[in-house]
């Protein structure tokens, strides 16, 4: 194709659209302002103008946020990952057992105490990645639905976490290891991985293929994409991020327990979906997920601030998650009609 005569038409302007995150950002602003207002009415102080509260708020959801960055990518391919919460528990336990300090009384591996910090960190990431590779391979090569494959991993990984020390917590972690959970480091890690995968999704071939597979797997296959290999990559990344979340959780708590991360997978899915990721695949952004994560954090923090009973908190949180998705569906349908 070398003809040029036909390309004399005026160059089209690439229209700038409003970012899709705008609407979800407005939801966040709405929720925050509601708490601000209620704060002045019922508690007599500002909700937002309290730096400490805001820091704690983001700190609390960073771990879920790290997981959500991975889960978002899985959901964009049209899949789901239910195993991330259990992978948090499993990696926390195993990694912590290699991060115990020499002066701790009863370490898991008495011969392996006081190891340099990179060893437990690499072990944690490797175990998470391995769990993800198993998920991805099951989905790609046995063709079982992602829901089932990751459900199996969810149960088994939790089992591994409990079996590993027969339910005993792993404590006495080295200061080097716990330092990654210190202060605002979890937030930095969360925003760091969010930035990395935001770039990966938008500007790399990896990202383009991820969206293509979610939008239409057959078309992606006919276009020459090796769907099986790519899905394994995506699940491996999600597993690695869950592993990272496990490291951060153990470091922050300065101990590892088999029950860590329970239900985190659902919070992560909720964060992604609130942030505009479509469960049917092909659509979603990390920026949306970050905002979705912050919305979850704001809710928890706001309810605590208003001294709402913990039982009510969960009831209301559930309703807000559903409402956010209903609103999103409605928005999409409206757009289609135009």
């Amino acid at each position, binding site marked *: *194709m070398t003809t040029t005569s036909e390309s004399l038409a005026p160059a089209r302007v690439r229209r700038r*659209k409003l970012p899709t995150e705008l609407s979800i950002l407005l939801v966040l602003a709405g929720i925050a302002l509601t708490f601000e207002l209620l704060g002045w009415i019922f508690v007599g102080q500002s909700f937002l103008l309290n730096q400490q509260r805001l820091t704690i708020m983001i700190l609390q959801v960073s771990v879920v946020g790290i997981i959500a960055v991975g889960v978002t990518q899985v959901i964009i391919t049209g899949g789901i990952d239910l195993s991330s919460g259990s992978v948090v528990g499993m990696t926390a336990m195993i990694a912590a057992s290699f991060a115990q300090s020499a002066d701790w009384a009863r370490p898991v591996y008495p011969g392996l105490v006081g190891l340099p910090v990179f060893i437990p960190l690499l072990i944690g990431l490797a175990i998470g990645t391995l769990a993800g590779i198993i998920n991805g391979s099951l989905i790609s090569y046995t063709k079982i639905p992602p829901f089932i494959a990751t459900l199996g991993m969810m149960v088994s990984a939790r089992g591994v976490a409990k079996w590993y020390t027969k339910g005993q917590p792993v404590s006495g972690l080295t200061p080097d290891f716990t330092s990654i959970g210190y202060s605002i480091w979890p937030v930095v890690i969360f925003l760091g991985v969010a930035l990395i995968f935001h770039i990966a999704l938008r*500007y790399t071939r990896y990202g*383009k293929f991820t969206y*293509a597979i979610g*939008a239409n797997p057959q078309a992606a*296959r006919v276009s020459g994409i090796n769907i099986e290999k790519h899905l394994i990559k995506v699940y491996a990344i999600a597993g690695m991020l869950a592993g990272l979340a496990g490291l951060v959780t153990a470091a922050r708590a300065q101990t590892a327990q088999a029950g860590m991360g329970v239900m985190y997978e659902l919070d992560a899915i909720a964060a992604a979906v609130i942030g505009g990721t479509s469960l049917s695949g092909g659509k979603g952004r990390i920026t949306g997920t970050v905002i979705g994560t912050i919305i979850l954090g704001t809710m928890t923090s706001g309810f605590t601030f208003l001294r709402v009973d913990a039982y009510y908190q969960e009831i209301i949180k559930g309703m807000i998650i559903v409402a956010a998705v209903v609103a999103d569906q409605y928005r999409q349908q409206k757009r289609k009609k135009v």
Partner: protein
Amino acid sequence: MVSPQTMRAVRESGAVPNAPYLLEIKNARKEFPGVVALDDVSLQLRRGTVHALMGENGAGKSTLMKIIAGIYTPDSGSVTLRGADIRLKSPLDALENGIAMIHQELNLMPWMTVAENIWIRREPLNRFGFVNHGQLNRQTEELFARLNIDIDPEVQVSTLSVASRQMIEIAKAVSYESDVLIMDEPTSALTETEVAHLFRIIRDLRDQGKGIIYITHKMSELFDIADEFSVFRDGRYIGTHASTDVTRDEIIRMMVGREIIQMFPKEDVPIGEVVLSIKDLSLDGVFSDISFDVRAGEILGIAGLVGSGRSNVAETIFGVTPASSGTISINGQLVDISSPTVAIQNGMAFITEDRKETGCLLMLDIQENMQLAVLQDKYTRFGFVTQGKLSAVCEDMSQKLRVKTPSLDERVENLSGGNQQKVLIGRWLLTNPKILILDEPTRGIDVGAKAEIHKLVTQLVRQGVAVIMISSELPEVLGMSDRIMVMHHGRATGFLDRSEADQVKIMELAAQ
């Protein structure tokens, strides 16, 4: 206009008006975005007859049938059932008015029993509101006895053959006391004995006074089972005749009829070396022993009815469903096309039959759709997409193809069929293919866009691309191809050269 509810009441009271026709369609018209599927079509169905609908793919038979079955409502025209005008709003509506359709792809629930399938929604209940299974099975046995069907009502449908499932569908239709039965190519998956049994049942039903609309592509069946037939072409009604009055050739002529208007910009271009050579290619149970060569600058047309295996051959050549035996050579070198990735590396491009299913990423924008195939090995550096360069190339391509859109950010979902097709063509032209496979390249798109696509294909062959073009539209195949391979039942039944090919010859090879 009588409401379906009133009709039903009338029918149930037994006071059926004495109308000359059981069902009559007058001047029906149905338009879909960009295409007129039916234009001024009429049909009259008498009691106690089997009425065949004949026509090429896309002639409008299916649309007409769906109107009768309440799946579509016509834009204009009338439907008269037993002498009263009705307007069917849903398939259920049609069913309750005594019109039942037996679909080509059967609609049974495989994990439920035969009896449960037939009486779904109408299960006999006992006084506690539970399903009375004894009564359910007895009812089914009675029904089967009436139809001479021998199937155990309690067996799970998933364990039954296609033929048995078809019988169950027919029994289900009869169980609604339907007197208009629509059958869409019911014999396409049956053996000869099964066909004989089916025909026995159809004749019984006819003798009971039912009217049967029978869609088929097979000439022999027409003479075997049909009393009358109507021919359609390009969404228009051509005529109705008694099946005893006409010969096979006359019917074919009615079906293809039209003069070929020279709307195809076919040019004589120098034909070069053999680029793609296929030998004894087979895919178990789908097609077998397909052999052909395609040369640079040549267009090989593949004709045949839907289901003859045309698209499967294309998918196999492209590695979507790798062959079970046979060889593929490109430029004289044997290649093992085990996946589309390998096919693309070997310079192939494939524009699939179904734009929505296997082509477009509907929810993504034009840019993302167009760049998909070329991203395999170009326009990336260290994994990062060189988006600036790539966008410029896509922009160029979309202007060259005259994609009508305000910008490349537009979602493909919002484009017309013709523009979606252009985006897909653009996707593949960016890869600079040496072999281009087109499966129904102009289906469902308007005449203007069709002509543009034909012109484009002509430009490509002039540049030495080897093209394989599958099409159900005979004028398109005849107008564009240098040679035509005709397929029937997974086999190549003949090759026709451009100089000797005409519609009648193709139909003879395709319908046998």
